């Protein structure tokens, strides 16, 4: 962001707080970018001649006579095919040693899609992971986060999903990412020969936290460019949205806004929705699918960040360690894909919805039986069968290291039903039962 000769330079800062500076200036527009003491900043408030700027890297060491230059435009990104294969920081500047990208300059955080122009998502994303494809099927144009405690292998699962998803472009938005994770993604995509399909905007733990606020918009502006202009199937990975929200609260607290639940700004819902709602199936064929990570603290999903996220996204995927089988599984209880209805039993075999529901119901029975056991009660014969079923179901279908196609998942389901249960206990619609039942006749 170089300054130009005709731009007016201000050198008298009136007020400095931890995150903002206020100066007297004229002709400034709302949300425009500025450079304060060589640091990127953005206009967040105008009151008469007084202009308040949010300084992304923070205000440490800013003197009242620091140089302030207004850039006359909101944050922008130059978009073109050249973005592919490149890594950038939160401002869209290359961090991979490559040259600046040339292209059409567009404002980030642009307008919303007219809802009547959207198309209904209908294309299944196959990941091979049964915990996803069978129970929580993903669809292009969907937005869904992993809800996981920091010690869960969400980065690995997300990367696996990304590589198996057959996306034309993968846009990675990294927020507060550790340098190790950043290098993990880079190496993984490289090894998979996918580097030419990747565009990454990364704010690592070494960068100032407030800069993260630009990352989702940068990533999604890129996604929109490829999905709209090139009609491509774009997958956008955003990790970690909890750290993004933390940055929001830092800014709002420093600007003295009244915090609502969990010291988050009252606008958290709208702020997150603006990002997630960029996921769309466009009329001309392109799509943006968002897979995000929202880390939990101690599994608490009632915290404002996962809670607001859950109200916005089209489901959520929980990872959990199943100690019975010593593997990480996609938890079938709290996980949900809200768009699965659009494809299961339609794009997949007819028995898909029923198999999915019956298996989860029987798995729930097993959970009940386990509670009984924990409370020191005797198990019935049925209880014992559900527990055995649950273990095999967990190992053969829920574990994240599974990689099979949907028909195989369904066949496995029927195999387990037949092995452990009677027709009545499975309770699936008669006509479907007649077609697929693999157990004893009655």
């Amino acid at each position: 962001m170089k300054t130009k000769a005709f731009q007016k330079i201000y050198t008298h800062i009136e007020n400095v707080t931890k995150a903002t500076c206020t100066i007297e200036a004229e002709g400034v527009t709302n949300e425009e970018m500025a450079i304060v003491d060589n640091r990127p900043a953005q206009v967040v408030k105008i009151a008469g001649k007084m202009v308040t700027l949010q300084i992304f890297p923070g205000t440490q060491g800013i003197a009242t006579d620091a140089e302030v230059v207004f850039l006359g435009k909101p944050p922008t990104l130059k978009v073109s095919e050249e973005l592919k294969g490149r890594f950038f920081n939160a401002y869209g500047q290359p961090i991979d040693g490559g040259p600046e990208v040339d292209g059409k300059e567009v404002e980030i955080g642009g307008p919303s899609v007219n809802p009547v122009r959207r198309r209904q998502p209908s294309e299944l994303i196959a990941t091979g992971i049964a915990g996803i494809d069978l129970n929580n099927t993903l669809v292009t144009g969907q937005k869904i986060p992993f809800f996981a405690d920091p010690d869960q292998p969400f980065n690995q699962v997300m990367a696996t999903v990304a590589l198996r998803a057959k996306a034309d472009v993968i846009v990675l938005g990294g927020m507060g990412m550790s340098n190790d994770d950043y290098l993990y993604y880079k190496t993984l995509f490289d090894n998979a020969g996918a580097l030419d399909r990747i565009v990454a905007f990364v704010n690592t733990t070494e960068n100032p936290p407030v800069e993260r606020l630009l990352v989702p918009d940068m990533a999604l502006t890129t996604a929109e460019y490829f999905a709209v202009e090139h009609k491509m199937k774009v997958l956008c990975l955003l990790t970690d949205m909890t750290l993004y929200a933390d940055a929001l609260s830092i800014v709002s607290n420093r600007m003295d806004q009244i915090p609502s639940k969990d010291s988050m700004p009252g606008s958290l819902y709208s702020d997150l929705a603006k990002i997630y709602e960029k996921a769309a199936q466009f009329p001309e064929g392109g799509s943006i699918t968002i897979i995000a990570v929202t880390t939990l603290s101690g599994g608490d999903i009632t915290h404002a960040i996962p809670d607001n996220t859950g109200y916005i996204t089209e489901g959520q995927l929980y990872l959990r360690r199943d100690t019975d089988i010593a593997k990480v599984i996609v938890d079938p209880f709290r996980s949900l894909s809200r768009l699965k209805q659009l494809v299961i039993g339609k794009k997949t075999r007819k028995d898909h919805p029923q198999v999915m529901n019956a298996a989860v119901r029987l798995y729930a029975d097993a959970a009940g039986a386990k509670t009984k056991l924990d409370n020191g009660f005797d198990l019935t014969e049925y209880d014992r069968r559900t527990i055995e079923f649950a273990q095999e179901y967990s190992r053969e279908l829920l574990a994240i290291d599974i990689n099979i196609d949907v028909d195989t998942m369904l066949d496995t389901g029927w195999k387990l039903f037949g092995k452990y249960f009677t027709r009545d206990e499975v309770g699936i619609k008669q006509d479907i039962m007649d077609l697929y039942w693999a157990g004893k006749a009655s």
Partner: protein
Amino acid sequence: MSTRGKVVGVVANLVTIEVDGPVAQNEICYITLKGTRLMAEVIKITGKFAYVQVFESTRGLFVGCEAEFTGRLLEVTLGPGMLSKNYDGLQNDLDKMEGVFLKRGEYTFPLEEDKKWHFTPLAKPGSEVVAGDWIGNVKEGWIDHKIMVPFDFQGTGTIKSVVSEGDYTVKDTVAVITSADGTERNCSMMMRWPVKVDVKCYKNKPRPFKIMETGIRTIDTMNPIAEGGTGFIPGPFGCGKTVLQHALSKNADADLIIIVACGERANEVVEIFTEFPELDDPRTGRKLMERTIIICNTSNMPVAAREASVYTGMTIAEYYRTMGLKVLLLADSTSRWAQALREMSNRMEELPGPDAFPMDLPAIISSFYSRSGFVNLRNGKTGSITFIGTVSPAGGNLKEPVTESTKKSARCFYALSQNRADSKRYPAVDPIDSYSKYLEYPEIAEYLDKTIGDGWVADIMKLKDMLLRGKEARDQINILGDDGVPVSYHILFNKAEIIDFVILQQDAFDHVDASTPMERQKYMVNKVLDICNADFNFEGFQEIGAYFKRVINLLKQMNYQQFQNEQFKKIEEELELSIAEKRVSDLQPLAAV
């Protein structure tokens, strides 16, 4: 001359304007930014400064931008042509907008300017009229759309002239009315009305006295909603609020459904856009879209317009009610509207109430709910607005301001339970926490007994008791263990399970089970009650679970069949045999249990 002003301050979408003349609270103004006009509403005035909330992004706004005040409040345009439309929160016709992305400052006319409607006069010259009286009729789709005396018409007037039957546009004058003071008013087929003001063009608003059938068993049978009644659906995310509302919009017995998508997901509205033109209304066979209006302000659309959207929906509902229609208004989610109020109130640095919501939130919610209702019109006809909103409580905790305020206003409470949703017991309406106050209305009880059958309400109370006893039995079993309780506890628990699986649970995605007409609900309730009232003979608790699973499975299979078709009857026979196996015949001593 209208008041003008200049922008002097901007924080997010709250803009301060220095004005050169009078302004009114809630007056609409337009701020000009490089040739684009941004709509805004006055929300506070101090001295010569008006604070306005802008219904658009304020990016690029600067000190000195010109503003022009309209002298009008936020209004909707009412007239034929609204049916089947997709509007945004400010009643812009979304289909008329060009391009894939919404453009700031693009406002489109909500009706059809050039379309000719076939007008048939209803009022005669010389007749005395007041606001809301019917002047004429046009066919809007299948609806007899009444052209009414403008709602803002003061006092009693006399019809001077009405045009003869023929084709007119919404802007053509169709009647001239002379008011008491002698002034003449030209009336066209359209009128404007401020959304935050109740339309009161009716004779009176009696207590609701009949039921609106929804096809959803857990509502119709367990906690029915009255026509003209109010209800709300609170629940944590993913528990089925939206699916339940969509089911209502598909199956409810209403003339007109208005769906307000308020600050929720765009893809959910796309589902309606995509499916409703194809799906049939189960009662009339017409396409669902032919009785639907959508107001769509999804979560990524401007926050201020989100607040407006629920009012826009309500005002359109009131308009159609005044022409004698049975309207069902649905809003998903009213919490987003409350949050929009909170965002603005915080920006204005008002003293916050609980959870930083504005202090007057309960009052705002209650006056909104009170706009619904069953009305007697002056001409002897009736109309109604039944309103059901969803509430999205933070953290799923019902002890929060929006849920608590709504609970005071809405008469039906359909609490969605996380536990039920987790175990896929959909719809996840908790049968014990939920209630319908209407069941306590004597006139409703009388209506139910008369239309469904004698003793119906008593039967429902019996079902509710059985559910409660089943829950108590289950709790005991969990504490004392399977063999620590008498066999009868297992039977009680399983009888409640039958009610749960067969009456409460309903597969919203199965084309038969999705909607159950009242007659069929009654049939199944009787069937289930018959089993629940019976005594059974079991050796020990071990065989009970398996037996009732078989019974439940058969009853569920019946739910999936067309009512009384061959397969249905076959399963029913099988069921009867199974019941007979274990049922203690009336002749046997009860001690067998």
